[in-house]
């Protein structure tokens, strides 16, 4: 299939900015992406804007036009909502738009503002990604939902809290040089193991923080790129989207994520690659176990093998397959609706050599993956990014 060229990327710092409006954060990220691409608001044909709880957090529906006008355009726009996969889906829709030639220049991204809701409010908001009737009313919080998966995984394949702690330590370490990261804080395995429990077997460091922030990507169609001699170093060459039942209780296996598997197979097939071609990945590590489930669903590890990957050093920045060099959701932060776009921005910068952790990417690496998951992986997107020239 044809390439969707990445013209530019932009993001705010991720962190706790309770007083910043969503529209202002998205403006910062989107205008930075347009500047990076050397394009102007009037060049934009469509805006795809990912956001999860804005209706609750900012008392604001119909956010698409608000996001577009924040970038200085009244181009057609839409808000894409798929919980934590909202901007992964926004990017997927944008990739389709430029590949079909329906649009030449699009902005895809997202924003989340959550810290203004407080911990209790944000916990309540995030729980909306689970089934209200059969999960939330039975006491399931979002950390609890992944904790249920973690215990089921341990029972099926083995592994323990120390394995998970190594994932947290790795991703915190990766974020130390990322000035956009929410948490630039080195932690030890003991810190993670001794942290207060939030939902057993998870302690505080098994969970990503509650973050605010925005990210955006400018995509350019092949025709526009050719016509304007557009110099894009990286393109999205494969896109995939998978689904599953909403509630964890209805999954055939509680230790596997078929939505990720399906999204990955579609994306690999689309790009004409296989998992052995992948040299680095940003995967959806909202909780430490989520990184394990992602790596196995992506086919980068066999089932039962990824739990020890960080502990063995394989996914660390000096390992064979660096994972979440940005710090991941775990340490870079997880402003829900911005995460998928921020992952694509990170992979692009890592492949182009402009990311502060680019020194961990081997010279022979030309293929990176961005994996974004919604809810307890009831939806997942995978994008394959490749060096374009």
């Amino acid at each position, binding site marked *: 299939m044809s390439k969707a060229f990445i013209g530019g990327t932009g993001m705010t710092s991720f962190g706790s900015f309770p007083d910043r409006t969503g529209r202002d954060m998205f403006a910062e990220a989107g205008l930075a992406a347009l500047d990076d691409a050397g394009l102007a608001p009037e060049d934009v044909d469509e805006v795809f804007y990912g956001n999860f709880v804005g209706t609750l957090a900012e008392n604001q529906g119909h956010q698409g036009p608000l996001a577009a006008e924040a970038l200085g355009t009244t181009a057609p726009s839409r808000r894409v909502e798929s919980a934590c996969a909202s901007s992964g889906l926004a990017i997927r829709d944008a990739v389709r738009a430029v590949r079909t030639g329906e649009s030449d220049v699009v902005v895809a991204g997202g924003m989340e503002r959550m810290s203004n809701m407080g*911990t*209790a*409010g944000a*916990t*309540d908001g995030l*729980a909306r990604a689970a089934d209200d*009737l*059969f*999960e*939330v*009313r*039975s*006491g*399931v*919080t979002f*950390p*609890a939902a992944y*904790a*249920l*998966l973690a*215990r*089921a995984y341990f*029972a099926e394949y083995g592994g323990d809290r120390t394995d998970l702690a190594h994932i947290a330590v790795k991703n915190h370490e990766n974020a130390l040089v990322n000035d956009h990261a929410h948490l630039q804080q080195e932690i030890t395995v003991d810190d993670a193991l001794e942290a*207060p*429990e*939030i*939902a*057993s*077997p*998870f302690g505080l460091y098994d969970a990503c923080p509650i973050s605010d922030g925005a990210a955006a990507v400018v995509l350019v169609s092949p025709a526009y790129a050719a016509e304007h001699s557009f110099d894009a170093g990286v393109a999205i060459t494969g896109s995939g989207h998978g689904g599953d*039942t909403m*509630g*964890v*209780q*209805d999954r055939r296996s*509680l230790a596997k994520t078929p939505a990720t598997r399906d999204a990955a197979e579609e994306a690999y097939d689309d790009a004409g690659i296989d998992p052995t071609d992948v040299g680095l990945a940003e995967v959806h590590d909202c909780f430490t176990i989520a990184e394990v489930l992602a790596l196995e669903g992506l086919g980068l590890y066999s089932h039962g093998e990824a739990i020890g990957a960080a502990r063995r050093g394989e996914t660390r920045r000096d390992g064979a397959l660096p994972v979440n060099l940005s710090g991941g959701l775990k340490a870079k932060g997880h402003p829900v609706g911005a995460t998928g776009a921020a992952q694509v921005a990170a992979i692009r910068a890592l492949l182009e050599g402009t990311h502060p952790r680019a020194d961990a990417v081997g010279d022979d690496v030309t293929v990176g993956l961005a994996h974004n998951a919604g809810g307890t992986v009831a939806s997942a997107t995978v994008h394959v990014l490749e060096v374009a020239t």
Partner: protein
Amino acid sequence: MTATQETGYDEFLDALEAGEGYYAECSNGHGTLPPRRVCPHCGDRELETVPLAPTGEIVTYTTVSVPTPAFDDDAPYVTAIASFGPVRLTGIVRNAGEDDLEIGREVTVTIEPTETTDERTIAFEP
């Protein structure tokens, strides 16, 4: 919490409360919970109402220390998923802490009010 009625779900809780739980089974043997018009796993529309087994087995569980506001006074509490054959339920475990539980532990299902809001929840008892 809201006083909104949820047709299908409310009747299901009534039935669990009366010890007459049920689920829907499609002609391919998949179990699912109401309200359903079609099997979410295979699209089959031939759904039959089948009595829920009197006991289930815990398949996974967690102790929640940081709750949503609706469970503020309940925390910490244990939430579990229990298997009742072709269908699983998620509920709060009563009269047992995490140390008393293990995967495979047999439980019965009932309905209990929460301490925080007095809303009905699905509950398991070892």
